[in-house]
């Protein structure tokens, strides 16, 4: 197989010599065109500069599922980012090697190519910078990038994939980070019932879903706006507070008192699959979240003004809660979660 590839390269080399317009790399490893769903924002610049390629994505997916990224070979990215849960898990807080418990709820991985901020506190702005964090974090994989490179660089399958994706078999940290990001850029969810209704593909909302959509537009859309169902702002909405003294919300990044316990508004897409909810899984069900907002949230100086103006709550009748949940479930994308 290896010889065959080499021969192919030699052939291609000759071919390129005889024809200047010929581009062997794009022929060997074509770019994957990311279709921007209707109404979505533009792609991030890094999704263009580190555009997904056929083998880059294949390599990224393999790394994403490889438990050797963790110190004791027990945890892969995919251990916490499970496709059936829209690439999160069903735990309150993430659990790494040796049962170590992390600070926060695992965020889903979807529509990353369009996101300006990553993680609950938005500490990461460039997706390619993120894969190193779980690899080295004590409560997650507790490994190091040299350890990872050492484990995979002599693996025949990786040698082949690095070759195909990047033109030679050298395993570098940047190639690992770029290929994982490339894989994640392809995880686009925009084929839910909601999308089909909006695109008028012959599906319609039920009565309850229609009512839920109206309530959503009346009471939720100021934060869960755009087709990503988040305005990507940081807000303190008075949820129960994480007792871990490390937790400061957005102020961990900005060091501004105003940002204390502010978190990024989460997307509502595939919300049905991403329980429990809240930055450390405070709520087991969507109903619990709505009950909490209805009963009133914890007061704070920097509590979101929308809540403050409404008596620190979002009042909802039981029927409204039922309809809202019906609507939120129309954001479930069964293709995306592989069912």
């Amino acid at each position, binding site marked *: 197989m290896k010889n065959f590839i080499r021969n192919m390269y030699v052939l291609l080399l000759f071919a390129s010599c005889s024809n200047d317009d010929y581009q062997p790399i794009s022929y060997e490893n074509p770019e994957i065109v990311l279709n921007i769903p209707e109404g979505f924002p533009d792609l991030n610049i*890094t999704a263009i500069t580190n555009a997904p390629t056929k083998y880059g994505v294949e390599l990224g997916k393999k790394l994403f599922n490889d438990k050797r990224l963790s110190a004791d070979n027990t945890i892969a990215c995919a251990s916490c980012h499970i496709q059936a849960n829209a690439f999160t898990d069903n735990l309150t807080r993430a659990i790494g090697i040796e049962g170590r418990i992390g600070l926060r709820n695992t965020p889903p991985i979807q529509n990353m190519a369009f996101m300006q901020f990553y993680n609950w506190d938005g500490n990461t702005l460039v997706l390619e910078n993120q894969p190193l964090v779980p690899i080295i974090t004590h409560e997650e994989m507790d490994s190091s990038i*040299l350890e990872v490179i050492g484990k995979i660089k002599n693996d025949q399958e990786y040698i082949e994939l690095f070759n195909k994706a990047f033109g030679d078999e050298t395993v*570098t940290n940047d190639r690992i980070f770029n290929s994982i990001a490339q894989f994640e850029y392809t995880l686009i969810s925009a084929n839910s019932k909601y999308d089909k209704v909006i695109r008028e593909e012959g599906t319609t909302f039920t009565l309850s879903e229609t009512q839920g959509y109206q309530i959503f537009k009346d009471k939720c859309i100021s934060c869960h706006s755009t087709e990503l169902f988040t305005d990507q702002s940081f807000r303190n909405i008075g949820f129960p507070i994480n007792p871990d003294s490390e937790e400061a919300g957005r102020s961990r990044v900005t*060091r501004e*008192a105003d940002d204390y316990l502010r978190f990024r508004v989460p997307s509502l897409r595939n919300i049905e699959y991403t329980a429990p909810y809240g930055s450390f899984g405070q709520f087991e069900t969507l109903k619990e979240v709505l009950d909490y907002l209805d009963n009133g949230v914890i007061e704070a100086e920097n509590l979101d003004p929308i809540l403050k103006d409404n008596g620190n709550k979002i009042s909802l009748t039981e029927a409204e809660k039922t309809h809202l949940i019906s609507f939120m479930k129309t954001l479930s994308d069964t293709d995306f979660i592989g069912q």
Partner: protein
Amino acid sequence: MKNFKKYLLLSFSALAIISCSNDNALVANNVTLEFNNTFGNETIVLGNATSTEATRNTSAEGQVHHFEELKYVISNIRLIKEDGTEIPYNVNDLDNGATVVNQAKTETLKYVLNDIPTADYSQIKFGLGVKTSLNTLDEVSFPNFYAAAGENDTQMHWEWGTGYRFTKIEGFYDTDNKTLSFHSGSTIDEDPDDTTGESFIQGVDAYRDITLNLPTMAIVGHSAPKIVIKADFNKFLSGDTHTITLVTTENISNNATPSAHTATEMMKFVDNIGGTGDTNTTGMFSITNVEN
């Protein structure tokens, strides 16, 4: 070609012999930085909550406190000649130009700079922390510093920020020994999507450049000077910029500051120990003396 290689080899051997016979001159071009971590004039002794040996300090606001752990990163070291010429010391190489000063490990209190050009030096500059361009936890480029900073008893990786912890202090305050925990580091980041050229930047830069005048010239080449640098942690709570009162909650009214991690108030401590970066470029540091 073969001959050329032989000559090359020969000249290398010759050089090797010359260097061997010239050891003294090389050593005389070493400069030792010695860090003396103090409360005022008293060198700090670490200790647990109930330790009787630990050095106790009282802040300007009357809070007694002592430390159990005390670490900080020094990097970007430059020596300045009498005529103003700056001699950078591996400033872009964390493996050979940066160190973690750890009060619990005596060997880390001295840092030797090698092969400093023969001259008289009147000033030293260094960074408290790691400048942003190098602060990426890049194990591939700087495996030795990465390993030293990441050791279990050092813990100077700030994983979530993919940077280094610049300072790590664990200790106790007030007579009932409440927990004091301070970690500092940079969170500064640029928006990759901003093509306007005025990149939106989020986060803070906790790196501080320190400039200290030497009371007597360090005469490198003639002798191997030792520069004794005092880091006065009395300034941690009672600094030139901020007078800090510690409290146990994140309620930061009354100008009080949370004692644990201090997410919102980290920069007050940074300004106190590292200076403000503009008007104050000494922070807690001063030169005790230069031994030639």
